[in-house]
């Protein structure tokens, strides 16, 4: 395998960006999934549509919209920059792009899990004197844990593979914003560099496989705990 330093650097950055994106997105996705599953309010359909938009928009459009909103000259970008957060053309921007792109997948998995929980179990917990947060922590959360896990793995995998929105929003600067997919794309642009690309493709495959296998194993353990099998 001819994975050179730049390829390893791209892999490191992709893992770094994906871990951050997953950690940031899980709580937010859980909250949104909860609202969509359990609450009724005006604008629920709109919220659902906005959350799912990145799934159907061309990624380049999502990236461009992020650039318009969070670019250095955009009001939101300037506001963030004044408190020391730079997003455009920075690895943290890649995190944001990964969060936005993976969000619909996470919300969907978690929402299904929440909807599968029988609210009667939560009622039973309340009649036993459990305060609301304890009901969530001791009954709901353990029951939806497999769904959260599934959502997190999908979000992570999406973040590892994110390309269009990322390259549009933060470009393709080696060592700074060049993620593994961007690096593969660059390698494919250079005649005769296919060998480099193949090495990185193998890396991407290995990461994706490990993530899926790890999540399957974890899900089995969680499911076994839930059903006592």
């Amino acid at each position: 395998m001819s994975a050179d330093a730049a390829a390893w650097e791209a892999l490191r950055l992709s893992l770094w960006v994906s871990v951050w994106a997953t950690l940031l997105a899980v709580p937010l996705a859980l909250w949104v999934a909860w609202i969509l599953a359990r609450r009724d309010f005006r604008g629920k359909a709109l919220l659902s549509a906005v959350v799912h938009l990145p799934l159907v928009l061309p990624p380049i459009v999502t990236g461009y919209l992020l650039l318009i909103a969070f670019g250095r000259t955009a009001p939101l970008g300037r506001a963030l920059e004044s408190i020391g957060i730079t997003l455009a053309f920075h690895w943290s921007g890649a995190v944001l792009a990964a969060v936005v792109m993976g969000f619909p997948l996470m919300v969907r998995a978690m929402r299904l899990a929440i909807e599968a929980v029988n609210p009667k179990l939560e009622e039973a917990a309340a009649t036993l004197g459990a305060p609301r947060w304890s009901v969530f922590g001791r009954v709901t959360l353990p029951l939806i844990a497999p769904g959260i896990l599934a959502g997190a793995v999908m979000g992570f995998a999406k973040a590892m593979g994110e390309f269009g929105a990322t390259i549009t929003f933060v470009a393709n600067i080696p060592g700074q914003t060049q993620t593994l997919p961007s690096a593969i794309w660059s390698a494919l642009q250079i005649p005769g560099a296919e060998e480099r690309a193949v090495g990185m493709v193998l890396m991407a495959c290995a990461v994706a496989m490990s993530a899926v296998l790890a999540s399957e194993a974890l899900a089995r353990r969680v499911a076994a705990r839930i059903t006592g099998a």
Partner: protein
Amino acid sequence: MSLDVDITHGFGDFTLRVAFEATSGITAIFGRSGAGKTTVINAVAGLLKPDAGRIVVDGTTLFDATTFLPPAARRLGYVFQEARLFPHLSVRDNLEFGARYAPADAVGPEFGDVTELLGLNGLLDRHPAKLSGGEMQRVALGRALLSKPRMLLMDEPLASLDGPRKQDILPYLERLRDGPLGLPILYVSHSVEEVARLADTLVLLKDGAVARAGPTMQVMADPAAVPLLGVRDAGAVIEAEVVAHAADGLTCLKISAGVLHLPGVQAEIGTKVRLRVLAQDVMVSTKHPEGLSAQNILPATIEAIQKGGGPGAAVSLRAGQDLLLARITARAVTELDLKVGKPCFAILKATSVAPISIGR
């Protein structure tokens, strides 16, 4: 202990308007499906907020125009029709979930007492998915008891169990009623048999209103309650004491009006049992019958007569201190000239009387 309920709640074109009081022992709310039983018990538990009214337990207002205590603050143990055990927790952890939120100063049974009483010691490490229906309900009952509630609410806890499983649970409920815990229970049921066996006080609901309420033995012997309980299920409940077991298999039981000889009574001599005498199994005679195969003949006076819409009539009879209920034809009432206060004889076939409960 006292529970005072007076609530109004409307859904669509159905309005529930229910007021009753419950004291110690088991208070049963009986009614057909749709009568509003579950609405009442859910309102008491705080799982449903009635439109208006009040619910007071032992001087603590759970609900009125300005108060709505959430379920977690009511301290009422609830045993649901489906056990609602937490599927991710073992039996032990389910039980400990109940104990976890009991106030430190609350009185009530401890873990060992409950597992002993309900026979759960062999199940503690199992998961709910590996339990039978009857075992699940016992765990659910234990979990509710360990929350050291002021009162236990039970919504058809036996309805999802088959006959033998029911018989597994009933003795535990009786132990709970008669044991040192003395926990008051509000018990929703559509089974006359369960109500007759368990309840001290009976509230009959019909179309969202209380049709009859009072001590079980009084309500069960009320001729006007026959249509509410169902013609086939109606029948008085009386108390008897086991006096002797004869060699031929019959047991001699003492009741206030005399003695009865019944087969199939397992209870020890000296114990008190409840007998359920179905109204359709009681005959009325104005003279002491001769040459009759029925062995149990009690002198009685007619307490009340209620003619139904059809050919039937319900007659309540006072025998000693007890009330019996007989279901006869309206024609017989006329031909025998039965009137309130008239002396007569109640004839019970020995095999038609079921001893339904031990204890009390």
